[in-house]
């Protein structure tokens, strides 16, 4: 018989053959699928994050914009003060509509509150709390002065506004407050530096469907035999850790609306998977580890460039939009191969940079004029830069949740 005929005879006999299968196999498959499902990611849902950020932004806008809308309902200096004390304060000239800054609005509100506080000493505590809320620091003796039942117009305002730079020029409460507003306004127009300590976590979801296909080590029909020392195969059971970042950033606000920022950011990406590791000498595998646990840690150093636009900027609250760009260098791509003979560490380098861009909304709460805390959810897209496999290469659109402390460094 010729070899071709022999082959065909064997093939005919074998093709379509079936064997009985033990029910235990399906139980094992089910257990394996359940195990794989449990290994999957702890999801920080991308679109739920976007939705949450949008809801938070809408809520913040509602809360923050409402006082400004009520500004027109605030009692004027002349009317309530006159009714309350029979000693009307001089009228305050309202700023031009287009030139009213949030600080100036606060000043007008403060005038109204002072008038009300004089009317009822019972409101003094609330008034002091309000002053603290909007960032006016008062010493104990200043609180006493506020509570002083002496006629309001004759009370020296300097103790209330000692933070202002020119108390000597004050002749009345309203004048002092206008000076305070002006000083704040002038300071902001000159610009302000600030520094932030930031932390960031990112969603670790991965796409469903064909885009989730993991790149194979070869385009061939089979997983090829290893030809060099290293990880020869990455399995299908893999999970990604939450990407975390930390760093320092510096921001300069040109004016109450616009600011720019930069800094330095460290990011760690992690994943784990089952894979094969081989040691190849002279073209021959001398050691093989199959389906072994492998963890991969990627360490990036990045430099961001940010542009901020303040939508609402009141005394304590800042509600802003940010545009980001960032270039990152993968400084270490570390694989830890778990082996019963001792763990194996592999370090790989990567060329090129990982660029990304993002857009987000953020809220900052100022505990004091020099310290604030912020939260900036940002939608970020990572460009393909021939970087090693990571969450960013599998799904480049990701959700950042950055938070940090911001310290004012002055002008």
């Amino acid at each position, binding site marked *: 018989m010729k070899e071709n*005929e022999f082959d065909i005879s064997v093939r005919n006999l*074998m093709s379509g053959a079936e064997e009985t*299968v033990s029910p235990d196999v399906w139980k094992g498959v089910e257990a394996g699928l359940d195990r794989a499902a449990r290994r999957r990611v702890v999801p920080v849902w991308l679109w739920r994050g976007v939705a949450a950020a949008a809801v938070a932004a809408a809520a913040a806008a509602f809360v923050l914009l409402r006082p400004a809308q009520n500004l027109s309902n605030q009692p004027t200096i002349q009317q309530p003060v006159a009714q309350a004390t029979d000693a009307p304060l001089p009228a305050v000239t309202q700023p031009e509509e287009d030139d009213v800054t949030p600080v100036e609005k606060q000043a007008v509100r403060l005038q109204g509150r002072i008038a009300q506080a004089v009317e009822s000493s019972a409101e003094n505590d609330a008034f002091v709390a309000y002053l603290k809320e909007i960032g006016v620091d008062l010493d104990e003796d200043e609180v006493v002065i506020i509570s002083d039942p002496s006629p309001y117009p004759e009370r020296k305002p300097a103790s209330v506004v000692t933070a202002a730079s020119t108390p000597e020029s004050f002749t009345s409460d309203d004048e002092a407050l206008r000076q305070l507003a002006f000083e704040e306004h002038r300071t902001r127009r000159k610009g302000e530096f600030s520094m932030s300590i930031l932390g960031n976590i990112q969603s670790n979801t991965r796409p469903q469907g064909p885009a989730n296909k993991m790149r194979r080590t070869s385009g061939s029909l089979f997983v090829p035999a290893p030809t060099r020392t290293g990880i020869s195969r990455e399995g299908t*059971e893999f999970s990604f850790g939450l990407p975390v970042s930390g760093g320092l950033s510096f921001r300069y606000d040109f004016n109450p609306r616009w600011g720019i920022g930069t800094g330095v950011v460290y990011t760690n990406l992690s994943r784990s998977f089952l894979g094969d590791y081989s040691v190849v000498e002279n073209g021959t595998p001398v050691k093989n580890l199959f389906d072994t646990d492998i963890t991969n840690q990627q360490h990036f150093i990045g430099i961001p460039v940010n542009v901020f636009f303040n939508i609402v900027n009141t005394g304590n609250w800042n509600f802003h939009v940010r545009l980001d760009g960032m270039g990152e260098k993968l400084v270490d791509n570390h694989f830890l191969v778990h082996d019963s003979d001792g763990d194996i560490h592999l370090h790989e380098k990567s060329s090129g940079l990982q660029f990304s861009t993002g857009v987000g909304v953020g809220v900052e709460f100022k505990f004091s004029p020099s310290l604030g805390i912020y939260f900036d959810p940002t939608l970020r897209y990572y460009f393909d830069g021939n970087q090693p496999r990571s969450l960013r290469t599998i799904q480049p659109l990701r959700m950042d949740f950055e938070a940090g402390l911001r310290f004012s460094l002055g002008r």
Partner: protein
Amino acid sequence: MKRLTGKLHLITWTTTEDPPAGGSSLERLVPACRSGDRKAQKRLFDALAPKMMALCLRYTGDRPTAEDVLQDGFITLFSRLDSYSGAGSFEGWARRIFVNTALMHLRKTDALKLSDDIGEARGLFTEEATPVQKMGYRELMALIGRLPADARTVFNMYVIEGYSHKEIAEALGINEATSRSKLQRARIRLQEMIKEQE
């Protein structure tokens, strides 16, 4: 002895890559399986498992090991359903996964290391017919199972799965000449065993 005709050869030879006519019932189960529907996965398992078990048994040579490979292969298959594009037959795509799983298992157990117990090829095929067609599936399976793992693997991949020597060489990390040599030795050894059965 009855000899196979060339015409019969052409009729019976089909590759695993032939596209299905209008889509098979297996392919209709794929979307549900992708979404994790356990009932659909069980139906797919029931439909495929007997054939894939036969495949695994051919590569591993023993039933317990074949069941291990079968189980791992199905877990891989369900995990990688997203990578099935629908361009070819689903069964052909699935067979590759099980062949891959079997190869990985054989590598893991060092079964694919070069063996020398098969002996030298003692000659080319003769014109004399061998009684393959008189044998049953079980007998032939048992004989294939007695081949050394490396020769059995090359024989399975080339003769039954229809892969080329180039593909086999890449999969096993050997050169094409070695693949041809192993195939030839497997054929001869199998023929010898068949004759011994007579």
